[in-house]
C-alpha cells in the first residue's frame, strides 16, 4: 500500500521524504478535519445551536499564513538536498545508454561494446488474452534483463528513438524521461544483488503498458561472467551472418523474432489491425519481390508506425523474419533470404 522503499541509499532518502510529507499531511489533516467535524457535531441547528456573528481576526489570519509557510520551509530543506544528490552523476564506474523504442528498451554498455534489446517476455504477451494469473511476474518479465554490478555507481544516459518514454524502476527511487533527440542522465548504486522490476511510465502509444524493465544486480564476479558470455554471444551472431542458412532454420528463428518484434502490430495471424497496422497475409510487400520486402523491413516506412528495423535487428534475425513472413499466414512464396543479402542491402 505504501511507496516502495527501494534498494538503494538514494531510494531510501526518497522514501523518507515521502514519509515526512505524508505525516505532515496527516497531522494537518487531524487538526483541520478535527475542527471541522467537531463543528459539524457541536454546532448543529438540530441541537439548538445559535449562530454567533464573529468574523475576521487578523492575529488568526496571520498565524494560519505563517505557520504553513514555516512547515513548508522545513519540508523543502531535505527535499532540496535529495534533489541535488540525484543530479550528481559524476564519478560513475559504468555508463549504460538506455534507448526507448516503441515498445522495447535497448541497453548499450558504452565502454564494453555490449548492446541488446529487452522485450516483454513471450509468456506475458501470450497470457494477455488467456490466463494472466498463471504467469509469474505477469507483464513485468523481459526476454533479456539489464544486468549491472552491485556497489558500483552506474550512470545511465537515457534517450529515445521515437516518442517520449520514461524509464522507471521504483526500487531505484526515480524515473527519467527518454526524449527523442535529447539525452538525460541519472544514476544508481545498488548495494545488494537482486532483481528489480519496473515499467515504462510515459504514454508512448499502443503498447505503452507492455514494455517492462528488469534490472538484475549481480556481484562483480557474476557480472563479469555474464559480460564475457554476452560478448561471446555477439561474436557468434556476427559469424552466423557469414554462413549459408537453410530455409527451415530461417523460418524457425524468424518465428521467434516475429513474435517479439512484429506481433504487437501485425498480430500472430498476420492479419494486422488495419488501417494503422496493415495485414502481412497476402500483402503486396510480403508476397512481392524480395528486394522490396528487405527494404521495407530494413528502412521502415516514414510517417507510419513501421520502424526501420535495420537499427534494431542483426542480419541473421532480419533474414529469418523476412523469410518467415514470406512463408507464413498463407503466404507461400517458397523463397528465402540469406543474411548476406541483408548485409548487401544495408
Amino acid at each position, binding site marked *: 500500500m505504501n511507496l516502495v522503499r527501494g534498494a538503494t541509499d538514494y531510494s531510501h532518502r526518497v522514501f523518507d521524504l515521502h514519509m515526512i510529507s505524508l505525516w505532515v499531511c496527516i497531522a494537518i489533516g487531524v487538526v483541520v*478535519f478535527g475542527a471541522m467535524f467537531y463543528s459539524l457535531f457541536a454546532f448543529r441547528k438540530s441541537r439548538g445551536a445559535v449562530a454567533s456573528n464573529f468574523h475576521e481576526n487578523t492575529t488568526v489570519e496571520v498565524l494560519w499564513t505563517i505557520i504553513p509557510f514555516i512547515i513548508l520551509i522545513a519540508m523543502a530543506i531535505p527535499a532540496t538536498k535529495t534533489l541535488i544528490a540525484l543530479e550528481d552523476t559524476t564519478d560513475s564506474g559504468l555508463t549504460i545508454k538506455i534507448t526507448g523504442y516503441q515498445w522495447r528498451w535497448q541497453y548499450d554498455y558504452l565502454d564494453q561494446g555490449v548492446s541488446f534489446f529487452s522485450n516483454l517476455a513471450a509468456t506475458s504477451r501470450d497470457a494477455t488474452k488467456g490466463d494472466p494469473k498463471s504467469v509469474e511476474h505477469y507483464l513485468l518479465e523481459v526476454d533479456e534483463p539489464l544486468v549491472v554490478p552491485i556497489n558500483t555507481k552506474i550512470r545511465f544516459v537515457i534517450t529515445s528513438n521515437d516518442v517520449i518514454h520514461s524509464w522507471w524502476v521504483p526500487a531505484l527511487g526515480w524515473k527519467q524521461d527518454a526524449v527523442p533527440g*535529447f539525452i538525460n542522465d541519472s544514476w544508481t548504486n545498488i548495494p545488494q544483488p537482486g532483481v528489480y522490476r519496473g*515499467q515504462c511510465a510515459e504514454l508512448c502509444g499502443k503498447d505503452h503498458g507492455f514494455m517492462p524493465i528488469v534490472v538484475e544486480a549481480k556481484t562483480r564476479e557474476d557480472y563479469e561472467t555474464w559480460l564475457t558470455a554476452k560478448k561471446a554471444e555477439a561474436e557468434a551472431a556476427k559469424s552466423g551472418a557469414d554462413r549459408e542458412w537453410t530455409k527451415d532454420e530461417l523460418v524457425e528463428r524468424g518465428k521467434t523474432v516475429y513474435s517479439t518484434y512484429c506481433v504487437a502490430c501485425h498480430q500472430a495471424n498476420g492479419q494486422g489491425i488495419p488501417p494503422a497496422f496493415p495485414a502481412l497475409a497476402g500483402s503486396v510487400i510480403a508476397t512481392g519481390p524480395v528486394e522490396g520486402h528487405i527494404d521495407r523491413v530494413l528502412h521502415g516506412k516514414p510517417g507510419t508506425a513501421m520502424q526501420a528495423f535495420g537499427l534494431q535487428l542483426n542480419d541473421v534475425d532480419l533474414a529469418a523474419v523476412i523469410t518467415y513472413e514470406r512463408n507464413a499466414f498463407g503466404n507461400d512464396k517458397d523463397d528465402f533470404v540469406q543474411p548476406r543479402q541483408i548485409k548487401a542491402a544495408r
Partner: protein
Amino acid sequence: MATLAHEVDHHHGPARGILRWVFTTNHKDIGSLYLWLALIMFLTGGSLAMLIRAELFQPGLQLVEPIVFNRLTTMHGLIMVFGAVMPAWTGFANWMIPMMIGAPDMALPRMNNWSFWLLPFAFSLLMSTWFLDGGAPAFGWTFYAPLSTTFAPSTTDVFIFAVHLMGFSSIMGAINVIATVLNMRAPGMTLMKMPLFCWTWLVTAFLLIAAMPVLAGTVTMMLADRHFGTSFFNAAGGGDPVLFQHVFWFFGHPEVYIMILPAFGVVSEIIPTFARKQIFGYASMVYAISAIAFLSFIVWAHHMFATGMPVAGELYFMYATMLIAVPTGVKVFNWVTTLWRGSISFETPMLFALAFVFLFTIGGFSGLMLAIGPADMQYTDTYFVVAHFHYVLVPGAVFALMAGAYYWIPKWTGHMYNERLGKLHFWLSAISVNVLFFPMHFVGLQGMPRRIPDYALQFADFNRISSIGGFVFGLSQLLFVYIMIATVRGGVKATDRVWEGSHGLEWTLPSPAPYHSFTTAPEIP
C-alpha cells in the same frame, strides 16, 4: 405593427419553439444550454470511464484492444475537462452572475450566444473521430509531442480544430464575464462587496484569457509541425519535444484552477448559508483566490520533474509549487472557521459542499506531496497522480457543481428538488467516489503507471475495488439526472428566499427568477 408586437413580445419572455434556443441572447437560456451540454458530456465522458474501469476490473485484456483503451482515456479526459467541467461553470456564471450583481443580463448577449453554439460543433467534431479512419485521439488528454505529431493519425487534425473551437468559446465566455462583472454591478456593489462566486469567476475569466491562447498556440504549432514543415517539437529539425510540455503546461496548470476556482466560489456561498453565519474572512478569501491565480502561472513545470530539467529549474518549480499550499490552506481554514459556532443544517447542497472541503483537502495533501521534487519522480505518471487529480476534480469540482445545482435549482425552476432523493444521491456518490479513487493512491505508490490497459498481478485487488466503486458512482449519477429533470418538471413550490440562511441578491428575486433578472437596479445596503 407586426414588428412592434414582436419586439414587445421579445422583451417580455422567451420566443416559442426550438428557435428560442438557437437565437437566444438571454443569460438564463444560455446558462441552461451550457448546463445541459455539460450534463450530456458528463454522462458521455462517464460512460467512457465505465469502459476503462471495466477493462481494468481484472488483469488481462478482456474488452478492448490497447489502442482503443488509449482512445478511451484520452477522450474521457478531453470530454470531462473541456466538455463537462468548463461548460458547466460557464453555465453557472451565465445563470448566477447577473442575478448576484443586480444586472438584467450579461454584458455581451450576442457573443454569449455564439460562444455557446460553438461548443456542440466542437464536440461533434471531436466525437466524429471515433468513426474516421485513424480513430479517436489516443495520445492522452495532454497530447505530448511527438506522439501527437509525427506519430499520430490523420484524425489529429480534427482534434486540433475542435480544440480551437473550444478555445474560442472559452475566451469569449471569459470576456463576457469580465465585461459583466466590471460594468454591470448594481450601484453600491463595490468589488469588495461582491459575492465570492463572482470574485472567483472574475479571476477565472482572467486565467482563461491568459491561458487559452497558449493552448491555441500549442495546437497550431502541432498543426505546423504536422503539415507545414516546421520542427517546433522535433529534435531532428532543431526543435524540442519538451518545449511542447512547457507550452502545454503553461496552459494546463492555470487550467486546473479554471476548473476549481469557481468551485471555491460556490462552496463559499453555500457554507455560510447553511451555517447561518457570514464567511469568516471575506477579504482574505479574495486575496487567497488572487494569490492562487498568480501562482498558477509560475509553477507549470512541476508536471515535468522527470523530463530532465536543470536542477536549478527543478528547485525553483518545487519551491513555487509548495507555496500554493499557503493560500489554499487559507481558504480551507476560512471554511472551517465559518462553520465554527454556526448553526448548521445538512441539506443536500451543504452535504456536497462539506464533502468538497473534506475531499478536496485530501487532494490538496497529495498535491503537496507531489510538489516535493524527488518524491514526485517516484509518483509522477503513476496512479498516485490519477488519484490526486481525480480527488480535486471529482469530489472537488464536480461535487461543487452538484452542490451549486441543488442550491440554486429552486431559484432556476421555482420548484424544490426531492430532499430525500438528493441525500440518497449524496451518500451514494460520497461513499462510492472514495471506493473508486482512494485505492488508486495505493496502486500508484506500489508502482502502477497510469494509462495502461493491463497490469501486473499485485495491482489486481485494488483495481477491482476501484472498478466496483466506479460502477456505483457512475450509476448514482443517473439518480442526479432524474432528480434534476423531475425538479424542472414540477415539485413543491419554492419560496423566494428558498433557504433560511440565504444571503445575496439572487434570493430577492421571485422563484423562478424572471426572464430578465433586474430590470431596475436593486438597492445595495
